[in-house]
């Protein structure tokens, strides 16, 4: 009975691993190295790669800059409507991206809710690189905010208490205690949100459109190439997968050997 259970569990786990691994292997087996190099110098591929890296990096920075205060508030304060904000923050994780893109159009498009105001400011989002960034920020923000808030909340109160008996103001405590102690969570969140921004497709194509060099990021280029140039699609996909794998690996590494280990905290005695 127990043996059967073990075999079954092993089979199930193996099946899932195969499901995850085989498509990746297929991608890499599909293309010859010389095609890979040739395609990488293709101007459309190069433009998509560059645009993707630039926008993903920028939207990650924006997510971090704006997400940090929000995560801090969510972790340390209770205020009316907090639950609503929490749900709002997590919503993009479960929203179909095309729906998100459509909603973004209705809000920030030229004919959208804020269309006129944005136009008055000279801001045009649909069909612009800025729109790509907005779509990525929208989709990637939860991947930073949730872990960041959890990280802030898990910082031991004792350190903050001690800091305040040492004359530290709240901002000072934030920068010298909160931030460094939750840095692993923050970095993990930033990495995840960068990976999400890099892979963002549905919201981008719906909200920002598809134009090489301006709004055509890697995932869009892969999709478009699928319809005309399969080799190009495979190469793009390989590059995309490689970057994502690198990001995820760095995430693991980050966790394994970061600055200090949790065991370094002072011993608790009762």
């Amino acid at each position, binding site marked *: 009975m127990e043996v059967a259970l073990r075999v079954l569990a092993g089979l199930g786990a193996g099946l899932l691993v195969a499901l995850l691994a085989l498509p990746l292997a297929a991608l890499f087996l599909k293309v010859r190295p010389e095609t890979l190099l040739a395609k990488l110098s293709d101007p459309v591929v190069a433009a998509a790669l560059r645009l993707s890296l630039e926008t993903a990096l920028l939207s990650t920075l924006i997510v971090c800059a704006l997400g940090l205060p929000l995560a801090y508030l969510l972790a340390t304060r209770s205020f009316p409507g907090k639950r609503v904000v929490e749900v709002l923050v997590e919503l993009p994780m479960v929203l179909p991206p095309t729906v998100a893109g459509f909603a973004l*159009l*209705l809000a920030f*498009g*030229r*004919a959208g809710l804020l269309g006129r105001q944005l136009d008055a400011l000279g801001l045009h989002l*649909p*069909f612009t690189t800025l729109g790509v960034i907005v779509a990525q920020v929208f989709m990637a923000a939860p991947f930073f905010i949730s872990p960041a808030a959890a990280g802030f909340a898990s910082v031991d109160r004792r350190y903050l208490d001690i800091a305040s008996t040492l004359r530290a103001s709240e901002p000072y405590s934030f920068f010298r205690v909160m931030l460094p102690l939750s840095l692993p969570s923050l970095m993990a969140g930033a990495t995840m949100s960068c990976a999400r921004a890099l892979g963002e497709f549905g919201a981008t*194509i719906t909200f*920002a*459109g*598809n*134009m*090489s060099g*301006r*709004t*055509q990021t890697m995932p869009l280029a892969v*999709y*478009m190439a*699928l*319809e*005309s140039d399969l080799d190009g699609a495979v190469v793009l996909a390989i590059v995309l997968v490689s970057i994502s794998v690198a990001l995820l690996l760095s995430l693991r590494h980050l966790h394994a050997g970061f600055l200090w280990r949790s065991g370094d905290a002072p011993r608790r005695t009762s």
Partner: protein
Amino acid sequence: MKGIFAGCALLAVCLAWTQAAQAAPAPDRSATTTGGKTTLTVLAAASLSEAFQELGRNFESSHPGVEVVFNFAGSQQLATQIEHGAAADLYAAADERWMGYVKRHGLLEGVPSVFARNSLVVIMPGSNPARLDRLQDLARKGVKLVLAARAVPLGAYSRESLRRISSTAGFDSGFADRALKNLVSEEESAKQVVAKVQLGEADAGFVYRSDVTASQAKRVKVLAIPEGGNVLATYPVALLKGAPNAGAAREFLFLLLTPEWQRALQAHGFLPAATAGD
């Protein structure tokens, strides 16, 4: 924790509801034969969806034992699906190119026949934000033009049309280039072009005449393309190799060319198969 339970409960309720809702009418899709019914599977270009759905209903009422199942997508996507072994009976494409692709791969049973044609129109949002009065205005600086991507049949037709317009009377030879400079997005399908224009995000877009359906006509304005500048899209249809239901498929092929079905297609904005274009 409580939230998770509430969420699960909600999910369960939704699931139950959809199952109940599905049980009421006949199931939409099923395996090739279920309960004595045979299924005719048609892979058709997205631009055919409204017209073919109507024809499908006609077919089902005149062939009680047959259920028609459509898969509407870009012709290029359908071609890829067929290449990778999608089990289907008929393939109706929006251009000869992708039909040729499928044919070259030896996946056709018999010869494709053209059953409809389509022409192009330029559409603008009802509010006409760029104040376009005539086709020449498309080349004006700052106009936001959307086209279908090059790989999509409509995208190729749109570019060809722009090129042809440039050499018709009243246009100069630089028209196409200047208009293409205004291109802000290459959409993945005709429907996406319509959506971007209808939402007022784009100032103009090239679509099939059949895309301007009765309901769309209320929301968008149409600019006609002069005779010499237009491109006729041809819609070939063919029986696929290994069609599970070749009999019904042949029947459907035959009906497509009958005057009755041709009229139905024309009611949806298509041009008759017979007119030999330019």
